[in-house]
């Protein structure tokens, strides 16, 4: 029953205005404002990336990507993500298991500490590893005398990326596993399953979509990280340049088509991430809803 208390004039048969909705003018105004804002700030930048990358046609786009330095940047980015994401996956599952399945002193504090990397500027994240491993540090000389290169080499890039993406998997899993409680695991254990069996056959199937969601976000950030990696990488061409760093170098050399070609690959990665994320949210909303409150 839609009694009309407030509207003063015309109603059409489809849209009767009720006391708890806005006038049609206000509604359209708000929708138009929101759409314009999204178009201006989100869609236009995305469109520019692809337009600029394809400015000289798809042929040049592909030629540019075949450049050996660009190719090695792509390989390095994949390598770094392939190391950093599984490490944080294992960590995330362990942290969520400890925090969600048990009650212990200092739990809230531990959760805050896990979130800490989110509130550190990427540049500062890079800097702390320069201070830790640099030649002026405590372990710097020892590393040097043993010929171990961490800064300005792949290990440094990996460590900085692990720091940046540290909370991603854990913070998706903790609310999800807290909501699921412990009764499934208790049932499995009382029926004689071992701890590992319980984890593999009961817990993991329960959390798999939430886990995938976390891994997806973790991977996007790992491949796209710029500030922290830029500080520790040393920008050695063909050796320690990841894709985002390659974008910067090409752009600063006024090689715009090449810069935007690499950027377009990264933008594609972002689009795939968004699509998979939306599909996961649609199909498994109940599982992921808990963790959608960032």
């Amino acid at each position: 029953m839609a009694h009309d208390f407030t509207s003063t004039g015309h109603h059409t048969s489809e849209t009767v205005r009720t006391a708890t909705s806005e006038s049609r003018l206000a509604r359209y105004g708000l929708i138009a404002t929101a759409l314009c804002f999204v178009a201006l700030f989100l869609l236009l930048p995305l469109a520019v990336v692809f337009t600029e990358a394809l400015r000289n046609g798809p042929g040049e786009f592909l030629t540019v990507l075949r450049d050996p330095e660009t190719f090695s940047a792509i390989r390095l980015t994949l390598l770094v993500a392939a190391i950093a994401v599984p490490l944080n996956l294992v960590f995330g599952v362990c942290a969520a298991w400890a925090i969600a399945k048990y009650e212990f002193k200092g739990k809230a504090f531990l959760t805050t500490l896990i979130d800490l990397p989110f509130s550190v500027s990427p540049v500062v994240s890079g800097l702390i590893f320069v201070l830790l491993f640099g030649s002026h540090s405590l372990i710097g000389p020892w590393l040097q005398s043993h010929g171990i290169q961490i800064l300005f080499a792949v290990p440094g890039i990996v460590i900085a990326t692990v720091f940046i993406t540290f909370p991603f998997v854990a913070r998706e899993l903790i609310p999800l596993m807290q909501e699921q409680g412990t009764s499934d695991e208790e049932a499995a254990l009382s029926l004689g399953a071992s701890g590992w069996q319980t984890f593999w056959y009961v817990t993991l199937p329960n959390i798999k979509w939430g886990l995938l969601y976390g891994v997806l976000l973790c991977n996007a950030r790992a491949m796209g990280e710029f500030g922290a990696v830029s500080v520790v990488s040393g920008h050695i061409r063909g050796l320690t340049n990841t894709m985002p760093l390659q974008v910067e170098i090409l752009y600063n050399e006024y090689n715009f088509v090449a810069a935007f070609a690499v950027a377009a690959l990264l933008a594609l990665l972002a689009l795939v991430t968004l699509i998979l994320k939306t599909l996961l949210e649609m199909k498994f909303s109940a599982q992921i809803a808990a963790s959608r409150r960032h």
Partner: protein
Amino acid sequence: MTARTVRRWQFRQPSVIPGFGLALGVTLSWLFLIVLIPLSGLALRSSALGWEKFWSLATDERTLNALRISFGTAFAAAAVNVVFGVILAWVLVRYRFPGKRIIDAVVDLPFALPTAVAGIALTTLYAPNGWIGSLITPLGIKVAFTPLGIVIALVFVGLPFVVRTVQPIMEEIDKEVEEAAATLGATRFQTISRVLLPGLAPAVLTGFALAFARGVGEYGSVIFIAGNLPYVSEIAPLLIVIRLEEFNYPAATAIAAVMLVISFAMLLIINLIQAWSRRRYGYGA
């Protein structure tokens, strides 16, 4: 009182689920190795400078300007995001229109798009010969290579923080509250501004704080569009990088320490807002 009723201090409550030691052990080792030891290294290095040296480095004219620009632009961008983020969240929660699901998904683009890509895209867009730049330059508005450009980049980066904090809370608003307000004679505008928005205040504040904190530390999307003029459009993270490239580690450490202290203070404020909101409104934003 018998010995039995005396409660012993327990680190954890008993549980039949195995693996606590392993899980907590891995968590704590990883946390110390990757996060806590490196961060305490920064604290150690800045305390080794001594208070006077630290203070003179932190209050250097160029450093102060960089910090002022970083915080000022982040504040302005977060304020813009609060206005448009709340409108966007409202439209996504309340209205139906074609393409809504796509818009909802696109809001997360700044989370997924690498910051360097956003940086060069925005710069190209707002440069004097860009799509938007060529429209506004004749009007005398300069965006690229000015502080206004920094604000634009930070609006891009911070938008999802506001929308994603406010949206779930908006979804939970009880329709009855609005009906009650309407039956008591409130106009729709009064219902929204006096009844709905105050209840959303903690979520909006949290979203603002998150966007602001992210904006202060942002680097990749800003350095391309900022122009990076010392004292005018040079942000604090960039100054850290410049000091590092000069091998001026004490100065880089001092700026980083100041930023870190302020961002931890922000984290504390966010937690306080949420605790207050749970007490006052029964939910944590």
